[in-house]
């Protein structure tokens, strides 16, 4: 009996080691769908003034979309913090992950949260990196501003130091739209870039 227990313990250990070795580094699933957005919000920054650049109460406008298409990451984006005078412009989408909701989105009018990560310029220059988190909480409907949809952005400098965080919970106008998966949503190789940026994130988003 003691031998059996010992063998089982060793077997579990070996099985666990096999599992660890075979699990990809990325902890987040690549999102096999699309998310689109456009609108504006009054900036919220729960970490102000420790993270001081995004001043609460200022206005921000955004237009950002992402996904995967034909085995590659896909998307574009722009964001302006009017008080700071900073314009963040996507130059390369490097990762797209499911944060919450069905993954992939397969139902009509799906709801959920996705994150787009990549390279950016700020005011047209420099090497910057971003995490943009988008939440679709349903259609806003006429006269209901942005409904409960949410937008968040974190910007990192070239050393991957976190420089900026702003959130709109919810956005004040416009829309975030999660789209149902289509056949072009074929997976690229997981890049793990969102995970990498998350590992450099001290002050994280406050919504999922």
């Amino acid at each position, binding site marked *: 009996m003691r031998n059996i227990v010992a063998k089982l313990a060793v*077997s579990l250990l070996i099985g666990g080691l096999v599992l660890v070795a075979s699990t990809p580094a990325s902890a987040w699933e690549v999102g096999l769908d699309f998310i689109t957005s*456009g609108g*504006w919000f009054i900036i919220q920054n729960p970490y102000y003034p420790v993270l001081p650049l995004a001043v609460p109460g200022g206005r921000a406008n955004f237009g950002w979309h992402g996904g995967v298409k034909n085995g590659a990451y896909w998307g574009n984006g722009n964001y302006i913090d009017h008080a700071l005078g900073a314009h963040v412009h996507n130059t390369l989408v490097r990762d797209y992950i499911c944060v919450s909701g069905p993954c992939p989105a397969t139902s009509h009018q799906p709801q959920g949260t996705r994150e787009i990560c990549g390279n950016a310029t700020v005011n047209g220059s420099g090497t910057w990196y971003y995490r943009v988190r988008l939440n679709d909480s349903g259609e806003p409907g006429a006269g209901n501003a942005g409904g409960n949809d949410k937008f968040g952005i974190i910007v990192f400098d070239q050393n991957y130091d976190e420089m900026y965080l702003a959130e709109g919970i919810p956005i004040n106008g416009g829309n975030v739209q999660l789209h149902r998966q289509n056949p072009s949503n074929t997976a690229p190789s997981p890049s793990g870039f969102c995970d990498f940026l998350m590992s450099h994130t001290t002050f994280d988003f406050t919504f999922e």
Partner: protein
Amino acid sequence: MRNTRCLRLGIVALIVGLAVCVTVPVPASAQLPWPLPGGGSSSTGTGATALAVTVLGSTTSFASTGNLANWSDALGTALDSAGGSLGSAEVLAATAIGSGDGVASDASLGDLVLSILGTQITATSAYATAFADNTGATGGWSTLDGLAVNGVSIVPTGAPNQTISLGAVTLVLNEVTYSASGIVVNALHITSLDGTVDVIVASATAGQ
């Protein structure tokens, strides 16, 4: 005897390891519920444009997707800013997304400033979306925030085709047009009485 024990141990470890690998989920694969590529019927009537300015019959479009090639396509574009003789806008974005048996598009921009025949028109944000499916059902809506004409605030009612005549120019808010081929939603459509100027702000089209 020792070899037999090692063999048994190895077999048990292998079984446990394999069982763990099979039962633990890993990041999503490229499995899709329908065949690749293409899929769905062809579509030539779905696209979005953030801003289209026509002066004396000559049209300039900013952040325009063009039309989806088919109902499994995805198109997106974004512009930092747009400017011309009539004014400017920022964070322009447009997307058109197919979902196999349906299509959707959206367009947005921020910080619209226009001067048309002496009339100053400004808006914080404009967004429009339209959608259609293969049953022929269509829908759409738009938002327009912070609208002001000559400095006077105008609050949209949210009703389709809210028309405001200002003498030299006419504004149509949340302009919705249905046709046999689909739907067009414009957040704002401005025309001059003399027919020389036509400006469409955040236009989304969906249909066959």
